[in-house]
């Protein structure tokens, strides 16, 4: 008995202490806990709660763009851009195939690198995000009300569009450039070792319509045959300028690993794009032949249409004084990043022992004073000492990219030594360093490339996972790490696998996008020429060997769902209209033997898939997206008869 009492006493004492602690220190679920250094608390977003940021990760060689929440690192969507998508049917459906058309034909899969948002006053405005295709050079626009690719534009006379899609302060231009110099003249057949005579570089300025977002190739600048690696638009005082890094100023064309690493310095290119635009408007650019595709999805039809262009405006620096300069920069610089004030131009000297920092205001002075070392093809080379303002010592091996926190700190990813170094924009001294797992490429700070960063999270986009996760064979997904940068020291919060190779990423406060996201496509606004907006208009029409099936989907049947009179050798288009008007009520469509794939149809949308029946028989089709309790019943049959059969065309749904 006495024993029992003691237990009671101890229990009540403990509970009393707990209560006291709660009163004194507050509830564990609230903010007090966040300061304890518990990483799990800081990335935990409770079920049903929303993340603070949308983050968009380039899919690298998957050609996609994946959408994540920060800080939870939950993936919301994988948007196909430069690749066919075996989930949505993007690039398989007749409506979306044209988005993958180029002057080289249909390209099913490309390599995407650098996403960038549309900007208003330098800040992401949540309207569109752009991303480049590196291999067959293109840029794409993704509409952030639907998270769908709506436009692609090919870059003529460009070999690898890597320094893209960096966007100017008010989305006047998207930058592009040739990564691999090639003969500028289209399809020119010359010996490769005539590189110095026949090869050229080019920079591209892609205009964006401020209302519609529609892109157009405004002009290109012809450049010496160097390699143009990365770009950035200026901001604030430097907003009228665009910056690019170069490598291979040696003009090597073989074994670049050795031959493009000979010189001590390559260049940062500074282009006054506003001046260039004036020159172009004055008529100083030449019109030259080109061949490139512009593919645009119709706003209400949902059908992408290709337009082929056959010329482009080309500006030669020889004809455009005061527009473009070279800033000598240590050994094969990679990233070129502009601090939030627009004053510092930070280059990632990937083979250099320092991080060189140029000053924009000193650059303008040097231009005024004509502090030129030489002039190459009409482009003055400024003296190194005239523009450089700092060299960050001891940055580790292989500094690549830099982002900023708005409090005077810069963060540079360092590839070879696999770390991130934090340094001061005042003293140019390293103040902190943290490991990356493993071999970091880009890094991204929330708003870290804007005039007004959120000093919250930093994502390191690393190249190899090795032992970080449960192993999945010789090839594993590329990882990313989430860091907290709000304090004096950088802190690692999370390590997670990603899709493809996310070269670069962008983040935006969720409220900039969230409330504008569409829940359905309004059926009343659907202007697809083959849409069925009333179930009674569902029908099958034959025109020679071409049969068009106008079909509706709703939970849980197709109209019509029995079709006869199709013959071997026909070309059958299934035009599927999802007549649902409820959020997220998608239907799919697949028919046995279809070589063109499947499609997924969003509510209110019309999608088309083509089918070439090659054998007689009965072909079931069904809804591939689990849509209701009677989803299994959402199916139908097509009867295929031989060539010349007299089975007449007929269709039904139930007894109608």
């Amino acid at each position, binding site marked *: 008995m006495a024993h029992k009492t003691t237990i009671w006493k101890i229990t*009540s004492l403990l*509970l009393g202490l707990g209560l006291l602690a709660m009163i004194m220190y507050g509830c564990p679920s609230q903010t007090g806990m966040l300061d304890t250094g518990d990483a799990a608390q800081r990335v935990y977003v409770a079920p049903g709660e929303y993340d603070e940021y949308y983050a968009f990760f380039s899919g690298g060689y998957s050609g996609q763009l994946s959408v994540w929440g920060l800080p939870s690192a939950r993936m919301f969507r994988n948007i196909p851009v430069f690749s066919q998508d075996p989930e949505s049917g993007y690039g398989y459906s007749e409506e979306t195939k044209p988005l993958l058309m180029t002057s080289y034909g249909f390209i099913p899969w490309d390599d995407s690198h650098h996403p960038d948002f549309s900007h208003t006053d330098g800040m992401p405005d949540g309207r569109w995000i752009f991303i480049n295709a590196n291999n067959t050079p293109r840029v794409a626009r993704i509409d952030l009300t639907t998270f769908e690719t709506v436009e692609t534009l090919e870059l003529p006379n460009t070999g690898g569009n890597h320094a893209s899609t960096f966007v100017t302060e008010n989305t006047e231009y998207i930058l592009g450039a040739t990564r691999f110099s090639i003969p500028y003249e289209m399809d020119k057949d010359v010996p490769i070792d005539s590189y110095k005579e026949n090869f050229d570089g080019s920079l591209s300025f892609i205009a964006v319509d401020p209302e519609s977002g529609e892109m157009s190739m405004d002009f290109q600048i012809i450049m010496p045959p160097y390699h143009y690696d990365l770009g950035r638009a200026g901001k604030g005082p430097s907003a009228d300028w665009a910056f690019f890094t170069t490598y291979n100023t040696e003009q090597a064309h073989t074994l670049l690993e050795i031959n493009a690493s000979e010189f001590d310095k390559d260049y940062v290119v500074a282009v006054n794009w506003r001046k260039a635009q004036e020159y172009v408007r004055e008529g100083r650019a030449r019109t030259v032949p080109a061949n490139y595709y512009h593919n645009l999805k119709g706003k209400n039809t949902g059908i992408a249409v290709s337009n082929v262009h056959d010329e482009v405006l080309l500006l030669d620096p020889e004809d455009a004084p005061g527009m473009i300069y070279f800033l000598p920069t240590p050994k094969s610089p990679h990233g070129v990043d502009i601090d939030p004030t627009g004053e510092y131009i930070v280059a990632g000297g990937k083979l250099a022992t320092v991080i060189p920092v140029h000053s924009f205001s000193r650059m303008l002075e040097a231009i005024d004073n004509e502090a030129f070392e030489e002039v190459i093809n009409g482009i003055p080379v400024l003296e190194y000492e005239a523009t450089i303002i700092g060299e960050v010592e001891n940055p580790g091996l292989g500094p690549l990219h830099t982002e900023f926190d708005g409090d005077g700190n810069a963060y540079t990813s360092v590839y070879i030594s696999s770390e991130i170094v934090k340094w001061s924009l005042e003293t140019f001294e390293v103040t902190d360093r943290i490991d990356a797992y493993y071999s970091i490429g880009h890094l991204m700070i929330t708003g870290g490339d804007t005039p007004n960063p959120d000093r919250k999270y930093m994502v390191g986009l690393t190249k190899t996972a090795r032992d970080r996760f449960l192993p999945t064979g010789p090839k594993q997904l590329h990882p990313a790490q989430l860091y907290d940068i709000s304090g004096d020291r950088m802190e690692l919060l999370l390590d997670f696998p990603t899709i493809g190779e996310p070269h670069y990423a962008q983040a935006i406060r969720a409220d900039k996008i969230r409330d504008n996201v569409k829940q359905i496509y309004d059926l009343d606004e659907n202007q697809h020429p083959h849409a069925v907006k009333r179930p009674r208009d569902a029908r099958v029409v034959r025109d020679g060997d071409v049969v068009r099936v106008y079909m509706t989907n*709703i939970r849980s049947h197709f109209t019509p769902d029995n079709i006869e009179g199709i013959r071997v050798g026909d070309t059958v288009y299934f035009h599927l209209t999802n*007549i649902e008007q409820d959020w997220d009520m998608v239907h799919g469509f697949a028919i046995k033997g279809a070589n063109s794939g499947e499609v997924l149809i969003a509510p209110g949308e019309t999608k088309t898939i083509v089918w070439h029946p090659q054998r007689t028989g009965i072909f079931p089709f069904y809804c591939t997206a689990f849509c209701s*309790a009677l989803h299994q019943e959402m199916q139908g049959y097509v009867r295929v008869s031989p060539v010349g059969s007299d089975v007449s065309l007929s269709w039904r749904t139930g007894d109608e």
Partner: protein
Amino acid sequence: MQQVIRILLLLIISLVYTGCGNGNGEERETAAARDEAAELTEFELEHGIGPVTERLDIGDLDVERARRGADIFDRRCTACHRMGRRFVGPPVGDVTEERSPEFIINFILNPEEMTNRHPVGQELLQEYMTIMPYQNVTKEQAIEIVDFLRYYAETGEDLRD
């Protein structure tokens, strides 16, 4: 004494448990809360659960309104409904004679909850095995559909023809 300790303990435990609310201050609906809400008001039993919570004065049958309703019905409802016979869903030619306008409007505007919580909705689910989809019809359009159905019930004429 033990009784006193027990009561004190209970008090302390309940304080500890209730002292910490949800961080964002929002009450989350739990399954238990939904069960309690299964009790329907008399209005809800008669006129349905949804945005319409009191009798509407939709007035007499308005033929122009009924014509507009015919168009919406044709686009949004005919995938599943016929006037005089069962199709995917029940026949609707005489529904206005059985149900109040408010009931029909609530069913159109809030089909999921009507199926999950209303006895009539549950009965319909048992019979038709499918839940009526929400079709993004506005309240005004739902009134127009009611007039289209009232017109049919009164005259036998289908304004879509």
